[in-house]
């Protein structure tokens, strides 16, 4: 069994997710098409095997949440928390993503071709995120590790309370959050951006690494500091 199709207009999501968790890994399933998602929440959450999933249409909250190994494409837009807590694999949103995209992702690559809402990459823990459009306010809030490439603009308080995650922004930044600062792009940064854009796919060929700014933590809030009491 190589390829399968599930029509969510006909089959309950529970049945689809159960199959993807319990039967598909042992049956050699390599491709799954999910049609008529109609904004259903929690499509293809908690996968842990190498499979290509295509969700044809718009997905609701947490599409591809906690993903391991799977490569999941949403041809439409995705709701809140797409690819949240992803550990590995890939989630690719062709449209827009709502709030908290890639929240707390430990690994893998999240690609969003359109814009992402508030708090994109919040609490990022090692995953990579590439956004073709702009990101909303408080993106990369308390991001601990991983990389974000933003081809559009960033909203308010970008990278507030950043730890070791690094952000690359092509457009304007409305404001930086506490302890985030713009730093010079080194050769390694250019190589990183080039690699992430290439990994994101052909839609990102138009961007040049040298057009991006690097945002990282000034690390001034890593320890209690009485003179920065309003920034805690």
């Amino acid at each position, binding site marked *: 069994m190589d390829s399968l199709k599930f029509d969510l207009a006909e089959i309950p999501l529970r049945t689809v997710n159960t199959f993807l968790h319990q039967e598909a890994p042992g049956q050699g399933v390599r491709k799954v098409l999910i049609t008529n998602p109609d904004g259903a929440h*929690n499509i293809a*959450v908690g996968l842990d095997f190498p499979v290509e999933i295509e969700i044809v249409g718009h997905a609701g909250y947490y599409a591809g949440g*906690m993903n391991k190994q799977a490569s999941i494409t949403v041809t439409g837009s995705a709701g*809140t*928390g797409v690819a949240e807590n992803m550990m590995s694999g890939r989630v690719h949103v062709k449209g827009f993503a709502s709030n908290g995209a890639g*929240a707390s992702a430990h690994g893998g690559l999240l690609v969003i071709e359109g814009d992402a809402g508030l708090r994109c990459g919040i*609490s990022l*823990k090692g995953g990579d995120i590439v956004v073709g459009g702009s990101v909303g306010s408080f993106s990369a809030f308390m991001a601990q590790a991983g990389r974000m490439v933003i081809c559009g603009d960033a909203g308010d308080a970008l990278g507030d309370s950043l*730890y070791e995650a690094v952000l690359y922004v092509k457009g304007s930044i409305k404001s930086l959050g506490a302890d985030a600062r713009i730093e010079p792009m080194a050769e390694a940064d250019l190589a990183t951006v080039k690699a992430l854009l290439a990994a994101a796919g052909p839609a990102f060929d138009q961007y040049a690494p040298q057009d991006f700014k690097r945002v990282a933590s000034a690390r001034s809030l890593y320890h209690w500091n009485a003179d920065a009491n309003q920034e805690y």
Partner: protein
Amino acid sequence: MSEKNLSREESYSYDRKTIDYIRNAAAHGLYEIRGMGAKRKLPNFDDLVFLGASLSRYALEGYREKCSTKTILGTRYAKKPIELEIPITIAGMSFGSLSANVKEALGLAATAVGTSTTTGDGGMTPEERLSSKTLIYQCLPSRYGFNPDDVRKADAIEVVIGQGAKPGGGGMLLGQKVSARVAGMRTLPEGIDQRSACRHPDWTGPDDLAIKIQELREMTDWEKPIYVKVGATRTFNDVKLAVHSGADVVVVDGMQGGTAATQTCFIEHIGIPTLAAVRQAVDALEDLDMKGKVQLIVSGGVRTGPDVAKALAMGADAVAIGQGVLIALGCNHDSYFQNGEHYPACADYSALGTTAGFCHHCHTGKCPVGITTQDEILEQRLTPEFGAKHLKNYLQTLNMELTTIARACGKQNVHHLEREDLVALTLEAAAMAKVPLAGTSWIPGVGNI
């Protein structure tokens, strides 16, 4: 003027404690951070007493007749509810705040008496999974160490909205406890002063929470119970919202609940006492006709068997204990036991500016008895086996007291204890718990005044 004639009238508003607070604030420019729970005097379970059986109720033989303590949690939606031998569970406490030895001790003791233990901020250690037959895995705002593999390994998942010691606040772990192992599990730089988020990263309100809970159910194929833990504040509304969001079990943590580190102003000034919270929580479940369908766990200052019995009589299905558990392990003891010998810990308490019995310096990582530490030398002061033995004894004692009280009230099952078995000794307790003042039928605030 002679010494005896000096004025010693202490100001009520500016007493020594307040003067000390102001001086510290002026010297350091930062609020005080400490461990443990509220130290102020609060109405608590001691303010209630049981009406034992007499002519109007029939007692059970205390030493012979059976009294069941079996407790089942998570019956609403989960395919595999949690089955416990006793209704006394171990509250969520993190590896990081506690040593790995302590986490293992908690698991060993919990397993020995047939109850559950709980992870904390920072994820699940292999030691605690191995030692705990029943392990509840917390999903916290920080999501430190949170991963799908451990979700699958867990027996239930507890979505933590808040904690009684600091409702509305995030976790905190100061740099001296962020060891290489702790930092690695949390994906943080070693030695930083970690300040966790107070809000979850991927949902913002009860409607979102319902979808988040559904995600956790979907990814675990609806097998595991989902707990929702709230710090006690607007408990009536919060419990209702947790139930509407789809919780199988609601955990309500009153303001006496402990912490490994947070601001003193949080510990002492935010939240409501457990006594008030438990009644609000039960009222909410009864209002929704969900009593018995969604289980209630109460925590925050539950210390003794009578406390457990009173919480159950008030309507809780189980309790969770944190600080009492640590004290059973040796917290605040004046000595520690290592290599077969007792050693005095007084000098180490002294170095922290305190003494045994008064210590709340968990945040420093310099725990004199090796419990709240990541220091390689200090953590050797408590072995898993030694800690587990004492904790097992403590839990066993609580359970014996619980069943003794239940039998005295004529109950064959501790879950049959009821509010009608209780009266209050103070007006405050009567009003908060909504049980009559002893010797009267008067419940302040209920009915006509």
